[in-house]
């Protein structure tokens, strides 16, 4: 088995009394796109900067492809980074920007420019070589930043919130471009974002962070369908977190007591007894009677879907139903059939 692209061993980064990254350990596989996901202040950007060498760890050990880089500055590591602001040098042309890394690493001017030209061409940026960054659109600037990073053939390519400066319609396309490029070249990519949709859409592996620690790490499906705790459940798409009791759970189905009612739902095996349960809004079906009884407190029509808030004995349930399903008015008495329930640990 090859060395992991990146290995953290109990890495801590303290800024004064604040531990932005707190004894974090993980292995990130080569050739995968890994997302660091979390709310602002969770330590994801610091983690990325630790990988880049823009911060050095206070404690712990960082390896890139098996080599200890804990004390190496950014310039001595073979990484490349695409910044949130792109950080294109405003006084250099596109070509000079892309050739910069090659030339500071000792390449001859002509060779550096030839390589930069080829890289620009492969990213569809032919004809922009002589422009200044300010003369490009946001999406083009982003691609120049990617070209500038890729031309160095880095061991790991880092993205710091690369979509945040793009308008909403461009985001989906750029994120797909990044994913295609990563697959085509077999790059090891670490990608920081606070947008869970973005993370789900592009990642092989997602690391959810919270307060400087890893809350959970797994594939997008694992995180969505089997979140470890209420925080991850809520962060990976919305979830109703309710208290309940497991009466029986085996072989994918479970009998539960929720809000005084006994219901049946799809659920993985779990010991019998009280439990904290997460229910995705789209995993609830509203029916006239049956399931957990409740009353529609608020109803909204959104075109493709309808959203409800249903008051039940287990608490307020947020429900998303397809527009094709029967509609319920505010105040109507309904039953909430729980299709699929996730038991949370702790």
């Amino acid at each position: 088995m090859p060395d992991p692209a990146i290995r953290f061993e109990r890495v801590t980064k303290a800024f004064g009394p604040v531990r932005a990254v707190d004894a974090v350990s993980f292995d990130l596989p080569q050739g995968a796109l890994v997302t660091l996901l979390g709310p602002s202040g969770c330590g994801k950007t610091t983690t990325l900067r630790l990988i880049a060498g823009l911060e050095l760890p206070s404690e712990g050990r960082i390896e890139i492809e098996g080599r200890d880089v804990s004390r190496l500055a950014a310039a001595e590591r073979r990484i490349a980074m695409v910044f949130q602001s792109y950080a294109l040098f405003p006084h250099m042309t596109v070509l000079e920007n892309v050739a910069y890394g090659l030339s500071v690493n000792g390449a001859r001017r002509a060779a550096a420019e030839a390589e930069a030209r080829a890289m620009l061409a492969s990213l569809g940026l032919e004809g922009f070589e002589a422009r200044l960054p300010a003369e490009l659109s946001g999406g083009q600037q982003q691609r120049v930043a990617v070209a500038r990073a890729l031309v160095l053939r880095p061991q790991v390519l880092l993205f710091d919130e690369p979509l945040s400066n793009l308008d909403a319609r461009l985001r989906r396309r750029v994120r797909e471009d990044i994913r295609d490029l990563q697959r085509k070249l077999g790059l090891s990519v670490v990608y920081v974002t606070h947008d869970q949709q973005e993370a789900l859409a592009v990642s092989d592996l997602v690391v959810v962070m919270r307060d400087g620690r890893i809350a959970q790490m797994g594939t997008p499906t694992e995180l969505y369908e089997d979140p470890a705790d209420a925080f991850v459940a809520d962060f990976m798409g919305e979830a109703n977190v309710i208290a309940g009791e497991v009466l029986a759970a085996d072989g994918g189905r479970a009998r539960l007591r929720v809000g005084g009612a006994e219901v049946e739902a799809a659920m993985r095996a779990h010991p019998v007894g009280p439990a904290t349960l997460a229910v995705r809004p789209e995993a609830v079906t509203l029916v006239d009677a049956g399931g957990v009884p409740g009353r529609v407190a608020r109803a909204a029509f959104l075109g493709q879907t309808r959203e409800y808030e249903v008051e039940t004995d287990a608490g307020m349930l947020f429900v998303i139903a397809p527009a094709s399903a029967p509609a319920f008015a505010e105040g109507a008495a309904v039953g909430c059939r729980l299709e699929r329930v996730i038991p949370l640990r702790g």
Partner: protein
Amino acid sequence: MGALSLARIALACAAFGLLIPPWYGLESGFASWPGGEAAPLAVLLAGGAAWWLWPVPLILLASAPSLLAHRAEGRLLIACGAGVIAWVFLQGWAIGLPGTVWSIAAPFVGDASQPALGWGATFLLTGAVGLLSAGLAAQGRFNGDAFVSFLVVGSAALLIAFVFAPLLTILSAAAVEDGRIAPEAMLARLTAHEAWSLACVTSSLGCGVVWNTLALATLTGVLSTLLGLAFALLSARANLHLGGAFRALAILPLITPPFVVSLSLIVLFGRTGMVTEALSALFGIPRSRWIYGLPGVLLAQLLAFTPIAYLLLEGAVRQIAPSLEEAASTMGARRFTVFRTVTWPLLRPGLAAAFLLGFVESLSDFGNPLVLGGDFDVLATRIFFAIAGARHDPGRAAALALLLLGLTFGAFALQTAWLGKRRYVTVTGKGDAGVPSPLPRGLAIACGAVAFPWMAFTAIVYAIIMLGAFVHDIGRSDMTFTWRHYITAFEVEWFQGLVFRGAAWDSLFTTIEVAAISAPLTAGLGILLAWLLARQAFPGRRTLEFLAMLSFAIPGTVVGVSYIMAFNVPPLELTGTSLILIICFVFRNLPVGVRGGIAALAQIDRSLDEASATMGGGAVATLRRVILPLMRPAIIAALAYSFVHAMTAVSAVIFLVSARHNLATVYIVGRVEAGEIALAIAYSSVLILIMLAVVLGIDKLVGRAQIGRRAPAGAMQTAPVPVTA
């Protein structure tokens, strides 16, 4: 840069200093090299002379083996570097020109004596600083970056040597009498009658020089603030479109040697002045010498410093968000009420800053009190006469310098305390549309009544300078046209080549040379320091910042006194050279370069540095290829500032010039002392024109550079190019 390569370069530099250039400072030139006076240290040692310096090459040698074996051993390098520096200075202080200074060394070296350190020592010490920095970097300090380490250690060494140590020298000079330390003498000097006497309250005798200084500074501060406020309100709020005229007014003091307005005032109001003559002829008002004294100095300082207050206050007025005033008027307040309740309180921090600036400028001003003071002495002039006058008394000069230093530091402390507490954030990130409310009518009239006559007066004062040079004797109203002053000053003759016969040429060439050498040094050191302070994290950063900004608060007179006291004897003997002038200018003008650099760096996003680092760019490459090109406007501004200030300064350098290296300003002051006002005016007008050309030329350069940097940023915000690919 790695520690190993720095250590090797440093060792080579030190070895060069050891082997080639003369170790001691030269009196008569290189002629005797490689022996005699110009001998390098290696030759001296081989000949058995200066044997107490043997440890220096031995320590250096100790660092060589590991470097040749491709290893940079942190501790060894630190010990070698620090050891060489310490030994060179200790032996330098212990064994001076008159023989052994420290009696503790006498038993060992007998009555050996040696002159000041020279170029050999300079290279050797630079190498030692390099070894020390390489050692620190090898130990992982400064993130292991030897380049940053060298910059920090080197600039700290320079700042300690040329800013901090001279101040300490003053302190010790004030405490020394007849060659021994005498605290009671220091106390007596600091509380002397001449400084604190209150005789002027009860009798016709003059008051103590501290009271004089404080009174003048307070008056100048208050009046220049009020005048500046009148100009600021008119230009920002009165829709008179006077921006150009006001700005021309504001640029004048920048390019004028500070005492030039005094010359003009003498021409107008002196005993035989034009206004005095007219008043005497028309109204029979007796001639008097009222201009020589507090009124004259005050008038001159107001002319010189009001534009500075105006610039500062105009900024303050424009920063007040119109929406605040609009809010007040929507709540029913009338114009004057809005001004009184909203505008004025928001202006108070600006007013305080303007007052303190005028106050400090007045404290430090030397030229105007010297020319116009008469019997009215202030600290700056009294210090000068304690050194240059008939009664040469360094102890007294040092004590007076300490008093002046105390006043300026006090004023700066006050300013920091005041501004620290009362800074209203009126500039927010949000755009603030809105029209500034116009001035209340009464206030506008009052401002105009003050500002326009003052502007006319300023214009006349400067016109006199330009006119006075072309007439026979403007001081005695002899207004016949002549070139003779220019001929005296700037005569050129063709006699087997171009001969500069005029009396002013020598000092003008020296001035331009010194200014042209010191300006790039100031800008370079300032920008590098700014980069260190703004972009690098290292222990001692605050201390370095304090040292770099310290000279901003030291009046020129104090600098001058401290320099002649600190650099008059070996091991660092610089007086009488043009080098001391250059060093003086570099460290006096440094804070402005540092500030400008820090401000410019604040505009350059840190992610650019980081992007360069992630692409493999080390500190040197990042600085050279990314940061410095983007800082071009700040660099050019620092160049311009230091050049112009080196051309116009008088207070510090009047102590440091010599017959061989005289400066234009000092030469002019000398002409005034000798009563040759017209010649002084002629020379001043030439200086002003040179400076105007420099400032305008640089403005053009900077202007273009700024456009080059701003246009893309603006284009990015306003006109995104549509996606084409």
